[in-house]
Structures are given as C-alpha cells and as structure tokens.
C-alpha cells in the first residue's frame, strides 16, 4: 500500500540540504550517493558531472519514485498517481513540440527530452524522426488522452500563431485530469485530495495573474492562461484580482475571496502575503510555494487519526520541493551564486 510505503521512503534532512549550499558539485554528488538518489547520481557520475546531469538524475529519481508508488497502488490512488505522472508526460510532449518548432535534429532534440510513461526514448525518437511540423507531432500523440485537447488547441494555434496555446492546452488537461481523479476518491481521501490539488491549481492561477498583470495584459488575454477548474478562486474571484489596481489590492482581494469561501489554507497563505514585504514576483512565487508545502503538511496534522491519501500527497510534495531545493543548490554552486542568495530561494517546511 503506497500509504505505508511512503513512510519507508526517506527524504533528506533539511540541515543536510542546507549544508550543501556553496559546496562543489563533486561534494554534492558524493553526499547524494548516500541518499535515495544514489542510483541515479551514480549513473550521472559515470558520464560528465555537471548541473545538467545532476538535474536529470534528480528528475529521473522523482519519476522512478512515482512509478514505484504506482505499481503498489490501486483504484483511485492509482489514478491519482497516474495523473501526477501525466504532468511529466505532458512536459515531454511540450519538449517534442518545442524542438520540432525550432527545427532541431533528432539527436539535438533528444538531449532535451526526459522519457516518461507512454513516451519512452524509442517512442520519442520515432515521433521526432517522423515529424517535420507541429501537426505531425500532434497527429502522432493524438492517440493518447490529451490528444483531443491538443487537436482543439492546434486549430486555435493555426489562427493566432501563438505557440503558448498548445502548451496551455496540455497544462489545462493535466490539471483537469488531476481534479477529476481527486473527485473520484471517497470520503476523507476525496476531501484532502480536492483541498490539495484545488489549492495547487488556485496558486498556479494566482501566479499567472500576477505575472500577466506585470506584463500589462488585459483581462481577456490573462484568461487564456488560467486553468479553469478551481476550488476557491472561481472566475468572479479571479476577475476581481485581475482588475485590482496594484499588487497589494490583488493580494487583499484574494485574501477576501479565501475568507468568503471559508478556505483556511488560502487564508493562511494570503495573510502571510499581506504581512510580507514582496520585493519581486519571484519572491511572491516563493511565498506561495512555501504556502502550498505548509498546507500539505497541515493536512496530515489535521487528519492524523486515520491513514489517508494526505500522507502520500505530502510526501510527493516534500519530494518535489526537495528536488527543487537540490536543483537550486547545484545550479547555484555551478554559477557561483552567493550562498545567502541560494538559501533565500530554498523552500522548507516551517519548524513548528
């Protein structure tokens, strides 16, 4: 049962992760060889040791972890984890589309691709060798679940020539699928999964709103990038946020929407945003990500009496942020970024 297996899968201690800040790549690699990332790091060390190979190793480990959990689960949980893996598959499709649009050769394109799920290395190579245009790629992947969404988006792309339309269609499908799978669970699991995924989708929409407002896009243009499933921030709440005059008013509007919907987790996050000094959008994204991580952990504390899907989701979220932190440390070390700046970017659970 994945709920029990999760307890056996270990995460790296936060102090150990902080200790890696400013360390050389070889030191980081040797430390990670004593962690659950051992297999992938050893494989990467045999080839060239640089931030790209280490990042790829971390990503492979996460995919492998999800696939292991998938083999151990059934029913609704199986669909949930499949939905999470679909995110990676969608990323692979995006990579295929981008490399074909940029007219890269098959070998050059394969450097960017992370094979996952239905799109393993052979399948990706076949797609690249048989595709000269975006239409060819979409024809090949049309047999998969997201094929229809891509085909619809392609018709819009032909009119607007906006490549992002295709990427947004994939993202919308993935999140819609996750939301649907969360809705197919029962009882407490359903409540927790909808809370967590609903919050994640809302935060993705909020980040999109802030970024698009900074770019001075109008309401209709911003709506093109929003995921149209939501637990708390519905169309009215997002419209109010989009039309707010500045960053502070937007945050206040979102806090009020969270309060009106009696969504505690949303209120915690936007209350913190109201109290923080937001210096930049990347700073704001960090606060939102930290809020998501805290919400996952809060879910476990709220419902400790029974085993539930919250443990699994919290573990996967912690794992995701652990990989994000390790990636930041590795790239920061390679680029010579000052350790203080790297530490500001790390996202950890609060110590309380």
């Amino acid at each position, binding site marked *: 049962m994945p709920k029990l297996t999760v307890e056996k899968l270990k995460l790296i201690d936060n102090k150990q992760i902080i200790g890696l800040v400013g360390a050389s790549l070889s030191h980081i690699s040797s430390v990670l060889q004593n962690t659950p990332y051992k297999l992938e790091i050893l494989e990467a060390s045999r080839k060239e040791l640089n*931030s*790209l190979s280490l*990042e*790829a190793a971390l*990503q492979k480990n996460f995919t492998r972890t999800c696939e292991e959990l998938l083999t151990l689960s059934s029913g609704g949980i199986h669909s949930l984890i499949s939905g999470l893996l679909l995110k990676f598959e969608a990323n692979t499709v*995006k*990579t295929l589309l*981008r*490399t074909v*649009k*940029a007219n*890269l050769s098959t070998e050059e394109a394969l*450097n*960017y691709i992370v094979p996952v799920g239905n799109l393993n290395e052979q399948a990706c190579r076949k797609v690249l060798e048989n595709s000269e245009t975006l239409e060819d790629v979409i024809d090949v992947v049309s047999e998969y679940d997201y094929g229809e969404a891509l085909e619809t988006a392609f018709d819009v792309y032909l009119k607007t020539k*906006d*490549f*992002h339309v295709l*990427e*947004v269609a994939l*993202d919308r499908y993935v999140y819609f699928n996750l939301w649907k799978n969360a809705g197919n669970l029962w009882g407490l699991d359903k409540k927790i999964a909808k809370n967590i995924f609903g919050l994640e989708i809302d935060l*993705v929409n909020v*980040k*999109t709103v*802030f*970024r*698009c407002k*900074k*770019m001075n*896009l109008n309401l209709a*243009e911003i709506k093109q*990038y929003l*995921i149209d499933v939501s637990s708390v921030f519905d169309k009215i709440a997002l419209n109010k946020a989009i039309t707010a005059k500045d960053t502070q008013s937007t945050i206040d509007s979102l806090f009020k929407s969270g309060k009106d919907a009696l969504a505690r987790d949303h209120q915690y996050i936007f209350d913190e945003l109201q109290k923080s000094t937001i210096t*930049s*959008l*990347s700073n*704001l*994204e960090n606060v939102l990500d930290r809020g998501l991580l805290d919400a996952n952990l809060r879910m476990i504390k709220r419902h400790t009496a029974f085993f539930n899907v919250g443990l699994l989701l919290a573990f996967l979220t912690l794992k995701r942020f652990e990989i*994000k932190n390790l*990636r*930041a440390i590795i*790239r*920061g070390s390679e*680029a010579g*970024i000052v350790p203080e*700046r*790297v530490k500001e*970017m790390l996202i950890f659970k609060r110590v309380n």
Partner: protein
Amino acid sequence: MSAEVANVHPTRLELLRLKHRKSMAEGIVDILKKEIDALTLTLLELVKEFSPLRQKMYAEVNEAYNLFVEAQMVSGSKKVEEASLVTQPVDYQIFESTTTGVLGIQFPVFKLKQNQLSEPRFNPLDTPASLDESSSRIDEALHDVVKLAQIFESVKNLLEVIATKKRQMNRLQFKILPGLDATIRYVELILEETERQDAIRVRILQRKRKERSMKNV
C-alpha cells in the same frame, strides 16, 4: 624659432593695418579661450554622467544574469534552454536624431524602441517569474547602453571641436601673432630709419642752404 616677417610695404598705413590685425587676432584668441572653457565644462559634465551610468549598466547586466541563473535554479537549466527555443526574439530599433548644444554643436540623440510583441515572450504557466525579471533588466541595461553610446558620441564630437579650436588658438598664438609682432617691429624699424635719414637729409639741405646764402653775401 624666429617669426616670419610678412612681405609688406613699410608704410604708416600698413603699420596701422598690422596693429589692427594684431588686436583682432588677440581678441579672437580670447574668444577661443572662452569657447574652449565652455566646451571643457560641457565635456566634464558628460564625463561625470558617463561613469555612474556605466556602473549602473554593469549592475543591471549582473542582476539580469543572476536572475537568469535563478530561473535555471528554479526550473532547471534544460527547461529554460528549452523555453528559449520557442521564445520570440525582441526586435529593437535605434532612431537617430540630433540636438543643438553648447556653441551650436550638434549632439546625437539615440532612442531605443522595442517592437511590442502580441503575446508574452514566456509561458507564465511553464517558466518562473525570474525569467521575466531577467528579461526586463536586460532591456533596462540595453537602454543604458544606448545612452552610453549617445554620451560617448557627444564626447567624441566635443573633443573634435575642442581640438579644432585649440589648433586655431595655437596657430594664432604661436604663428600669426608672433608673425604680426615681427612685421610690426620691422615696419617700425624701417619707418624709424626712414625718419632718421629724412632728418639727416633735411639737416644737410639746411646746411647747404646756409652755406649758399653765406657765399651770396
């Protein structure tokens, strides 16, 4: 080096003309000195602007690079590189014009204009905000680069004008004026000599007249 004496008729009229030319040349030298002072002040003001602007540009480029690396830290280097494959390049155009500055000198004015894109460069769902921030810092840095180029070109124009005026002033001070002085001295000498000879001639004539008058008596 001795000054050249001009080939002139050594007359009083010529002497007057030479003195007039000398005072004109001295006046022009004064004006040129004042012009060079004004141009030097303008040059110093531009140079004062240049250094902090260059520091600011370096800081912006540095910050843009740091933000770009932060984007790689958040999303992964491969992901950022992949996003760049389909990112629309920004089209910049520089419009040149001129403006009249000190002493009527034409200074260049460069305006950097960016062609507005119809949609966002980066997919907000798929890339971190630090990529947008990096892009806007580079944009600011480019504006500063164009301003620096404008200041540099203005400084270049000013230096050329200052050099020309200095050459003119030096020519007046070290060639024309000494030449005029030498010529004036020459003419004065000739005139003095002529006066002395006239005086001697007059005395001789007077003595001869006296002797003739004494003989007649």
